[in-house]
């Protein structure tokens, strides 16, 4: 049985400028998967999480978690999910230990009972256990929030942008923890705006303006990228970018750090024809080389 199944979910936030946050979303998350929802801010990730977590009612469509309907069986669902909102929402005026104990008792369990599950994370928090949650660093806060979401041994863990605003080292550690949690058989759904984190998931869904663009394994998504991709380096990249956007063989061209990524329309164009075009327009100092696409290139191709 799939862990989460979402069919044709629509959610509109009414108002003067009404926003369609989710536009007929379909999604299937298998049991035991580490599933990533990748998308920029405003894609609708949080809305989707809140609907799955039974905090928000959808306008249309159905969603089930372990076969339980999010509207009808919300009481049962709340017992089996662990939800970590994107915004830090633990009690800042309670200590680390008090927060964990409090959330444990809400689920009628205790820290001791599920210690094995959170041990890895808790040992890192232990030196600060008498510190107030509000006084922790960003990375520590996220670890504490994860602890609290895990304390009742949930079946499905929903993590909404757990690594946003966290330093690269803590992010790496966080993903390592998720990897270890997955081995215990837990289904984990995580959202992130960072494309580099996508490859760490078993499967990912690319999301943009309320729509799911594509769902596959990270490699599957990369493999499905049909176009030739070239990386272009050199000086005056901005001028080069403007120039390349007028090239007849360009499907799309974006700046990626210190390089430009150029996708070609079809196989009648190649690195050589791009070099020729650039030289003809007075750009002799550029480097052009074919590269393998990344998740971000796949994402950009939808824009």
């Amino acid at each position, binding site marked *: 049985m799939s862990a989460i199944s979402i069919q044709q979910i629509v959610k509109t936030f009414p108002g003067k400028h009404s926003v369609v946050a989710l536009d007929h979303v379909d999604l299937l998350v298998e049991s035991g998967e580490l599933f990533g929802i990748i998308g920029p801010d405003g894609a609708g990730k949080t809305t989707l999480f809140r609907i799955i977590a*039974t*905090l928000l009612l959808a306008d249309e469509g159905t969603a089930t978690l372990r076969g339980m309907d999010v509207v009808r069986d919300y009481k049962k669902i*709340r017992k089996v999910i662990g939800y970590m909102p994107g915004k830090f929402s*633990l*009690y800042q005026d309670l200590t680390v230990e008090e927060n964990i104990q409090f959330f444990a*008792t809400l*689920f009628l369990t205790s820290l001791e009972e599920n210690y094995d599950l959170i041990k890895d994370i808790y040992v890192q928090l232990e030196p600060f256990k008498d510190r107030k949650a509000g006084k922790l660093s960003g990375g520590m806060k996220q670890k504490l929030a994860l602890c609290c979401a895990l304390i009742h041994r949930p079946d499905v863990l929903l993590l909404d942008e757990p690594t946003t605003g966290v330093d690269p080292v803590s992010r790496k550690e966080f993903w390592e923890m998720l990897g270890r949690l997955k081995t215990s058989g837990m289904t984990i759904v995580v959202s992130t705006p960072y494309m580099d984190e996508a490859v760490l998931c078993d499967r990912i869904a690319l999301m943009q303006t309320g729509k799911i663009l594509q769902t596959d394994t990270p490699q599957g998504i990369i493999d499905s990228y049909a176009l030739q991709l070239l990386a272009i380096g050199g000086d005056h990249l901005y001028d080069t970018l403007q120039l390349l956007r007028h090239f007849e063989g360009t499907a799309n061209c974006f700046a990626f750090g210190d390089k430009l990524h150029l996708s070609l329309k079809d196989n009648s164009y190649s690195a050589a024809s791009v070099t020729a075009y650039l030289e003809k327009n007075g750009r002799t100092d550029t480097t052009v080389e074919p590269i393998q696409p990344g998740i971000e290139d796949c994402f950009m191709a939808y824009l």
Partner: protein
Amino acid sequence: MRVLLFLLVKEFQQIFRNPAIIRIIFIMPAVQLLVLPLAADYEVKNVYITVVDNDHSSYSHALVNKLVASDYFVLTGYADSYAQAMLDIEQDRSDLIIEIPGQFERTLVREDKATVSIAANAVNGAKGGIGASYAASLIQDFNTDIRTDWLQLPRYNPYPVIAITGSNWYNLHMRYDLFMVPGILVILLTMVGSFLASINIVYEKEVGTIEQINVSPIRKYQFILGKLIPFWIIGFVVLTIGLVISRVAYGIIPEGSFGLIYLFAAVYLLAFLGIGLLLSTYADTQQQAMFISFFLMMIFILMGGLYTSIDSMPEWAQVIAHLNPVTYFIEVMRMVVMKGSTFADIRSQFFIISGMAVFFNVWAVLNYRKRN
């Protein structure tokens, strides 16, 4: 039950860690009870008068002396004319002008009657009105004094005289503190009930912690009780502090039983916690909750009979006053503290407040959503 216990433990941990709340709980009643009853005194004293004496006779002097000798009046000065006296009023140096006409004494003696004019500054309505009537009654007194002097045989008065003596029941010396302190105690409890509780819940909304609570299997009633009980207890603490202060600072010892005060306060606090809870289900930010509370407090206080008598309000306002829970508790407090009323006397107020407690709490619970 165990969950509720932990919710309460957590709530008290947070309350005791918040120095602002501790200060509000202990300092607010102290300051309000020590300052307000002294300031909110309706007794009009120090009415400033300017005298225009056009007569300069011994009678006119005697009249002025009589006025100034009383506790109520302070002589600003004499003026030569009414117009000049008006200047004192305009510059706010005087509240009353007493004008004694020329030939006052002569007319009085010859014609057996004379007129004195009193002009009052009614910008401060109470002071002007009460000052003028004090002055009128003193002049009346003066009149009686002269008549007594004129009558050589005071043994039997040829005219029948009814002397009026009054006695102020339940408040023998007309002490305003006795009247104000119980009322202010009620306002304190009201603030604890509606302000603190609603702001507390809205804070959880604002910070987002309520999401974590909502997503847990905890029941709605557990969450709500977990919020109501701590503030209910704080209400009792504030009431106790207030009663101690009124005992120590004003020597007010309730005529009635403390048990009755606490019983009524228990139900009253429930009603206001219900209002606070209701407010928090509608407000999304602490700012909104603050302003709504503030707006309601103004109405509750001014239309609750703390400062003004409800019986003298227009009829429509009386209707509003009787929808106001504060009205009933102020009434009951004064009855129990001053008159020593028993439960039988306050039964109707008790049932009305109980009804309000049920009404507001049910509304709040129905309106509280664990999801939207």
